[in-house]
C-alpha cells in the first residue's frame, strides 16, 4: 500500500469498511478461480432458468436418423454439436434442459435439507434435553436405513414425481446437516462470548441467531456444496432403478444412467452429463471455500492484502 493511504481519516476508514459487500465484490473480481466458478454457475443457472423452457421440445424430439450422432460435427446445426443420443435427440438440448431439472431437484433437496437441518441442529445443540435426544435418535434411524432402499420403497408407494423425489432426497440428506450443525453448536455454546450474550440479557433465539449461526453457517455451506454433486448422482441412481425421473423430465443424472449401456458405442451420452455434474460440483465447492474465507474476518484480511498488493 502506498504512503498516501496512511493519511486516511478515521471516518473515511469507517465508510469504506461499512460496505463490506463492495469490498467482497472487488475481491472476487481479482481472484481468477472463484471468479470462474461464479461465472460458470451463473451461466448454468441462466441456461436452466431462461433457456431451458425453449428447448423442452427439442430435448424430447426423436430423430432415428441421428441416433448415436457423434459430437463436434457442425452439419446438423448447433443443437447437435455435442452429438445425439440413442434415440437421436439433441444432446445440447437435453443437457440444457437437464440442467433445469438437476438444479431444481438437487438444489431444492439440498436447500431444504440444509436449511432445515441447520435450524434443527442449532436448536437441538443449543438446548439439548429431550428435544435433542429425540431428534438425534431420528437422525440415527434415518442414517442406519439404507437410503437408496428407503427412497426406492417410498417412491414406489408414492409414485415417482419431481416433488416426491425432492422430499425423499431432502429427508435422506437431512441427518448430515443436522449432525454437523449440532456438533458445532455444542462446542460453540461453551465459549465465553455466548455467556457474555446471556449476561447482557439476550434471548436464546438471539444467541442462536447472532452468535452461533454465523460460525456454523460456513461449514453448512461447504457441506451443502459437496452434497449438491452427491444428490445429482443419487437422482441418477433412482432413475436407473426406475423410480427417479421419467421422460419427459430428464436430468443429468438420468442421462448418465441412460447412456451407460451405450458406453462403448457412444461415450458422449454418458460423459457430457457426467462432466456437467462434475463441473457444477467443483464450481460450487470452489465458490463455497471462497465464501468461507471471505466470511472470516481474519482470512479476509489476508485476501484484502493479497489483492491490494499487501505483500509489497
Amino acid at each position: 500500500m502506498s504512503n498516501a493511504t496512511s493519511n486516511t481519516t478515521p471516518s473515511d476508514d469507517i465508510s469504506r469498511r461499512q460496505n463490506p459487500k463492495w469490498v467482497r465484490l472487488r475481491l472476487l473480481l481479482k481472484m481468477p478461480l472463484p471468479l470462474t466458478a461464479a461465472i460458470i454457475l451463473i451461466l448454468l443457472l441462466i441456461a436452466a432458468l431462461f433457456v431451458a423452457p425453449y428447448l423442452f421440445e427439442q430435448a424430447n424430439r426423436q430423430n432415428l436418423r441421428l441416433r448415436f450422432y457423434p459430437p463436434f460435427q457442425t452439419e446438423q446445426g448447433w443443437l447437435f454439436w455435442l452429438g445425439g443420443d440413442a434415440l437421436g435427440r439433441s444432446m445440447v438440448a437435453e443437457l440444457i434442459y437437464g440442467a433445469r431439472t438437476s438444479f431444481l431437484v438437487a438444489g431444492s433437496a439440498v436447500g431444504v435439507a440444509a436449511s432445515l437441518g441447520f435450524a434443527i441442529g442449532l436448536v437441538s445443540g443449543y438446548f439439548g434435553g429431550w428435544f435433542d435426544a429425540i431428534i438425534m435418535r431420528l437422525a440415527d434411524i434415518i442414517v442406519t436405513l439404507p437410503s437408496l432402499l428407503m427412497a426406492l420403497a417410498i417412491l414406489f408407494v408414492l409414485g415417482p414425481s419431481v416433488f416426491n423425489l425432492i422430499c425423499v432426497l431432502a429427508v435422506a440428506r437431512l441427518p448430515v446437516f443436522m449432525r454437523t450443525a449440532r456438533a458445532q453448536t455444542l462446542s460453540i455454546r461453551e465459549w465465553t462470548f455466548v455467556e457474555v450474550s446471556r449476561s447482557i440479557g439476550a434471548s436464546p433465539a438471539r444467541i442462536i441467531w447472532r452468535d452461533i449461526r454465523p460460525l456454523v453457517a460456513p461449514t453448512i455451506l461447504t457441506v451443502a456444496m459437496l452434497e449438491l454433486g452427491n444428490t445429482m448422482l443419487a437422482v441418477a441412481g433412482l432413475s436407473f432403478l426406475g423410480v427417479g425421473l421419467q421422460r419427459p423430465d430428464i436430468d443429468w443424472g438420468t442421462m448418465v444412467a441412460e447412456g451407460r449401456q451405450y458406453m462403448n458405442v457412444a461415450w458422449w451420452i454418458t460423459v457430457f452429463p457426467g462432466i456437467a455434474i462434475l463441473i457444477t460440483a467443483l464450481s460450487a465447492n470452489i465458490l463455497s471455500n471462497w465464501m468461507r474465507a471471505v466470511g472470516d474476518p481474519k482470512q479476509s484480511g489476508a485476501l484484502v492484502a493479497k489483492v491490494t498488493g499487501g505483500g509489497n
Partner: protein
Amino acid sequence: MVTPLLDIRDFSVTFPSLGGDIRAVRGINLQLGEGESVAVLGESGSGKSVTSRAILGLIDVPPARLEGSILFDGVEVLGRSDKELAAIRGRGVSMVFQDALDGLNPVYTVGDQISELLRVRAHMSRKTAKAEAISLMQQVGIPAAAQRAKDYPHQFSGGMRQRICIAMAVALKPKLLIADEPTTALDVTVQAEILQLIARLQREANMALIFVTHDLGVAHNIAENLMVMYAGVVMEFGPTNAVFGAPAHPYTQALMRSHPSEATHWSDLQPIAGSPPDKTERLAGCPFSPRCPHSTDRCTKEEPALRRGPAGHQVRCHFDLDAQI
C-alpha cells in the same frame, strides 16, 4: 563472539488495513544468549505479542509485512514455510500464549493434549507420556492432577488453563521459552511457584527466557535484563536493576509512577496523560513526544535513536534526564 541463541535485527511488522498500514513493530533489536533472560514491559498494543509470535514464525505473511531478520540458533526464521518452521520450533522454542485458548484444543482433555505432545515430539511411550503429563500438571500446581487430567479445558479456571499452557510449553525442555503474560490470571502464591519453576528450568537446562508482563514486580524478579517497549519500538533496554534503579526514559519513569503501589487512594493513581499513538500514522519525531512532559521542539521533529544513557544502559531519548520517580 559466539553467535547468540536468538538474534533479532531491525525487525519490523506492518499490517495493511483498509484504514492505512498498522505499524505494529518498528525496528527492534535483541540478542539473547543461552540461559539469558529478558523481561519485556510496555504499553498495551506496543507490539510485544506480535514480536513474540514472529519469533515462532506465527505471523501470517501476507497480510503482514515483515522486515529485518530473526535468527534462532543461527537459522533465519522469517520467510520460512510451515514445515521448515516446525523443524525450527522442534529445535527448541516454545511459547506460552497470552491467549490461553490459542494453546489448548477445546475438544480434547488436557491430559491427552499434554501426553500427545510428549509422544509426538519427545517420542515417549503412551504410558510414560501419561505419567509425565500428570507430573507436569502437578509441577504447575494443579491439585488432584491425575483426576483433572481427564477434564476438558472449559472445566478449568482461567488461571488453571494458563498453568496448563505453561506445563505444555516447558514439557519439551526448550532452549528458549517465550512467555507472553503467563501469570496475569494467577494469584501471588501460584505466581511465585510458576516463577520458581521457570527459574529452576533456566538454571538446570540453561534455558533462555523472554518474559512479557505488565507486572513491574514480576519483571524485576524474573529476568536479568529489561526491555521497555512503546508504540512498536524499544524505549529502554538494560540490566533490570539498572533500569529499575535509574529509569532514564520519560516513558519508563511515567510507567513506574502509575504503579498502584505509588498511590494510597485510587484518585492518586497517575496514568500517563494523553492517549497512545495511532499506529497508522507516521510520526516524524519521538513516538512518546505527544505525551512526554519533557518534550521539546526537537522531539516532535527528530526521532531519537537508541543510545547509551546516563546510567549506562540503552535509552531512546534526546536528553539525559534524571530518574524522577
